[in-house]
């Protein structure tokens, strides 16, 4: 047994030396690489640079003025508020759902998995319309809500609901494969040693998934701040009240304030880039964790 293992280890370096990782010719590699780079520049980098260029074209003063005018500030506040409500809710839901799905077997598990994926496949516009049909005047619960004096759609609660809907799968989708690959061994060991359910969760499960969880939260947050379609349907576009940052960009663009529109768009792009950087850091840690487990 030991001899066999040793022989395998001895053989390995010679095998890799004679087996180059890439077999394609140099020009093929270069051509593929330059096509990919051209594509990325044309579709991603160029538009982003355009946003920055247009935003700063009239100078810093105009830029600052357009992101600090009352309606823009209200839009920024609303965007942050919506993210601050929907992301934690999705975090709690995502952890619970993936815990249930990854660690237990129950009837309807596949169905629940499919349901969680639903917001990925449904167009955001439909997501918005669903809430209008539920909570709008004449909707299923619309009249009850009105009777209680609650305004759901065309107000902040509707925007939060629509955002919750479209960001629903992000945390759960990230955690389920991670938890499934980790299995239930460590939890079972903790149980045998006498740990309570809560202790198992906080001392064993949570530390195991923390990087995956943060990664999911970051993605969820990016979508929560950037969504346009669903929010546009339920917003009512009331300036200074129900316009999120993406909606505000559209409003000022349509008012021929192109610089202001691009200034606010650059703010969104900036948030996205920060999100991507944080995501990259978390992703590396997550990869390390996966390798370890």
């Amino acid at each position, binding site marked *: 047994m030991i001899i066999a293992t040793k022989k395998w280890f001895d053989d390995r370096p010679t095998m890799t030396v004679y087996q180059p990782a890439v077999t394609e010719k140099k020009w093929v590699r270069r051509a593929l690489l330059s096509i990919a780079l051209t594509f990325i520049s044309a579709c991603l980098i160029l538009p982003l640079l355009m946003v920055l260029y247009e935003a700063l074209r009239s100078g810093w003063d105009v830029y600052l003025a357009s992101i600090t005018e009352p309606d823009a500030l209200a839009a920024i506040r609303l965007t942050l508020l919506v993210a601050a409500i929907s992301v934690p809710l999705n975090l709690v839901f995502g952890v619970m759902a993936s815990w249930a799905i990854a660690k237990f077997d129950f009837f309807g598990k596949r169905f629940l998995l499919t349901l969680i994926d639903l917001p990925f496949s449904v167009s955001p516009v439909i997501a918005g319309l669903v809430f*209008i049909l539920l*909570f*709008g*005047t*004449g*909707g299923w619960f*619309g009249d009850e809500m*009105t009777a209680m004096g609650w*305004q759901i*759609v*065309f*107000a902040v609660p509707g925007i939060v609901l629509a955002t919750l809907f479209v960001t629903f799968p992000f945390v759960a989708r990230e955690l389920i494969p991670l938890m499934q690959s980790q299995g239930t061994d460590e939890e079972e060991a903790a149980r045998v040693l006498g740990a309570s359910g809560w202790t198992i969760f906080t001392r064993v499960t949570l530390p195991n998934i923390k990087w995956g969880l943060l990664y999911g939260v970051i993605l969820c947050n990016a979508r929560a701040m950037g969504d346009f379609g669903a929010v546009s349907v339920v917003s*009512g*576009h*009331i*300036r*200074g*009240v129900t316009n999120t940052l993406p909606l505000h960009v559209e*409003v000022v*663009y*349509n*008012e*021929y304030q*192109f610089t202001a529109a691009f200034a606010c768009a650059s703010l969104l792009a900036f948030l996205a880039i920060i999100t991507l950087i944080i995501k990259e850091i978390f992703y590396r840690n997550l990869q390390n964790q996966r390798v370890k487990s």
Partner: protein
Amino acid sequence: MTLAETKTKTLLNVSYDPTREFYKEYNVEFSTFYKARTGIDVKVRQSHGGAGKQARAVIDGLQADVLTLALAYDIDAISERTGLFDNNWQSRLPYSSAPYTSTIVFLVRKGNPKNIKDWDDLVKPGVQVITPNPKTSGGARWNYLAAWAYAEQRYGSEDKAIEFVSQLYRNVPVMDSGARGSTNTFVRNGIGDVFLSWENEALLATTKLSDAAEFEIIVPSLSILAQPPVTVVHKHAKNHNVAKEANMYLEYLYSPVAQRLAAKHFYRPVHPEFADKKDLQRFPDVTLFTVNDVFGGWQQAQKKHFNDGGVFDKIYQPGR
């Protein structure tokens, strides 16, 4: 002064696309006037979009206190479906509740390279016409009806008119959901040879925008008198305790200050005597007909042309 009086009151004005600049300025004027008169601060919030879309939102529960939409039919539809205000709303204010009017003109590129003079030139092959979608945009419905009325008068029959408008819509490469979207398509993105536009949007494009010198306005031989009406949404205004403010907000639209402002923002005021002479000179003389003259009112026009299965659905098939 009691506590209730010192509180700021908030009005929500749900409007259509091109009124943005006008109401931005009018709201400031009104707040100043109302504060001086009653001591109450009124903050007016705005919501803008394609008229049909905005009407739909109000039907679905958007809490508008006043409506300032593009055409009477959309307001009728809200009254009919929600009962939020009486269906005789249009008789509550002077001039059929339309404090300013407009019409439909053509915007073409500098020098008029396609030599567009009148409606007939829009149906020629190779001419690209920009107009929004009549299903969602109020301005687009005025465009459509103006073209229809011209063809019916010129060629003498309904069949000819159908032929004319279907030819016209075959020349439309891009159909936006609202007037402002179409202005951007034509002006900013450079698509199309002629843009069927609210006169106020066309004047805005040729005077205010940075690339104003690149366009000119062509006035057709015949066009439509567009009357964008206004009304109070009584139930909402009452619930929000702003009934008085909402009524005053609309009545004040007929005041000298507001009429002058309307003309400044390229709307034809119903009281031209209050407007600046210079502003009035920008409005060319056009033979105008009303929807009542030609179509027997908006209810009729809507039912025949724009409802599902109506004439527009029959003549417009995308991709053909």
